[in-house]
């Protein structure tokens, strides 16, 4: 199956689940970001080009789901997708520590970047409150979900390649 088609389907599925399921499993107001997880997985599997494009499309859809200004998540996710994609060549398929670490760092970075953009747009929130209430818990929640979902997502998104344990993907 065409990779772009599979990626598009994965993003659409993530958006649907973001609307239907993510709000129901929110913990203390922290909603997991399933679109972000797909974007980072795509970036780690396919590299910076696919990561940035998936990030832009996924971010734009995520923006359209929300109630605030449209555009910031498209910007943040395409940057995150690009940067995460840069380590694609050094990825091990079955290793869990690197992707999970990348999800945590990228998640925290994305939330901080989004907060900065909102501040620039005069829609910002007090930084420390946002860090404690939204950014850190969000990054941790996404990381926990990544531990569960990353193996499944890699199998769905990379059907074309049989991966042996700890062999380089690239």
């Amino acid at each position, binding site marked *: 199956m065409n990779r772009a088609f599979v990626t598009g389907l994965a993003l659409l599925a993530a958006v649907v689940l973001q609307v239907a399921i993510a709000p129901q499993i929110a913990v203390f107001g922290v909603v997991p970001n399933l679109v972000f997880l797909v974007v980072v997985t795509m970036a780690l599997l396919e590299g910076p080009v696919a990561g940035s494009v998936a990030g832009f499309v996924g971010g734009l859809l995520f923006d359209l789901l929300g109630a605030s200004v*449209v555009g910031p998540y498209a910007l943040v996710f395409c940057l995150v997708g690009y940067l995460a994609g840069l*380590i694609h060549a050094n990825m091990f398929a079955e290793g869990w520590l690197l992707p999970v670490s990348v999800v945590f760092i990228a998640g925290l970075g994305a939330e901080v970047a989004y907060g900065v953009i909102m501040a620039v747009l005069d829609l910002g929130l007090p930084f420390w409150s946002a860090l404690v209430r939204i950014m850190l818990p969000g990054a941790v929640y996404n990381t926990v979900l990544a531990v569960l979902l990353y193996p499944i997502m890699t199998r769905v998104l990379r059907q074309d390649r049989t991966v042996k344990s700890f062999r380089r993907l690239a």
Partner: protein
Amino acid sequence: MKRLEIDTSPGTGRPLLLVALVVASLVITTVWYREGSNGPLHGARRVVLAIGTPFAAAGSWLTTPLRAATGLVSDSAVSRKEYLAIKKQNDQLKARLATLEEAKLENERIRELVKFADAQDYKTIGARVIGRPTDSWERSIVVGRGTNDGVKLGAAVIAAGGLVGQVIEVTATSAKVRLITDAGSGVAVIVQRTRGEGVVRGSVEGKLTLDFVAKDKVPVKGDVLVTSGMGGAYPKGVVVGEVTDVTAPQADLFPKVSATSRVAIDRIEEVLVLIGLAPDEQAGAAE
């Protein structure tokens, strides 16, 4: 041991593509600000809302048993004696009891809503909450009423305890409501006792703060805040919340006032959408 190195050799990434996407994002953000509510991006958001509504409703419906089960477990934990007493009942009776209990609670909530709406003299329509925030940064809900039911953009949304929020996006069958606890929300209010005017804002924590109230009209804990009607976004006289804490440092121009809503906004399940003023209030507004 081989060190992990980031591969940044030429060809792994396309900086030009990244720059193009970044520029496109900035253009989109600018267009969002420049266009009106009928612009293409606002239209796209309405389309996404319309398409997403059935999925949001399905998700809410699917997780209802889970929420009911959680409630059942917590109820059992509260009263062990009660739990032992009903233990002998068969499964069918228990299931029926749970269903009836849920219907009764819903009935009570709706009665409260109707009573409140009658007392406030607004023309309203009841709506069920079918969608919750998809993002940690915002506080909004989706309700299952739209333009087909008379809901308009900017309509105020209330519950038995007072103001809930305002419609910011509306489709034929659903509407997105920004809650008053959202950090981007601002409601012009008046302190009921001192008549001091101010603006109630939301926050990251979901708490409310009262800004810009004059120092000679500082409220005290327990004072009720109601909408002032200024700006026309909300009708006058709707309860927004009550003051929980006041500090008025001499150096500050305005006192720091914290408030809380009387509505359990995060757990709200039914609301009333104001679709117009009652006939006598309409006459008053026209004067």
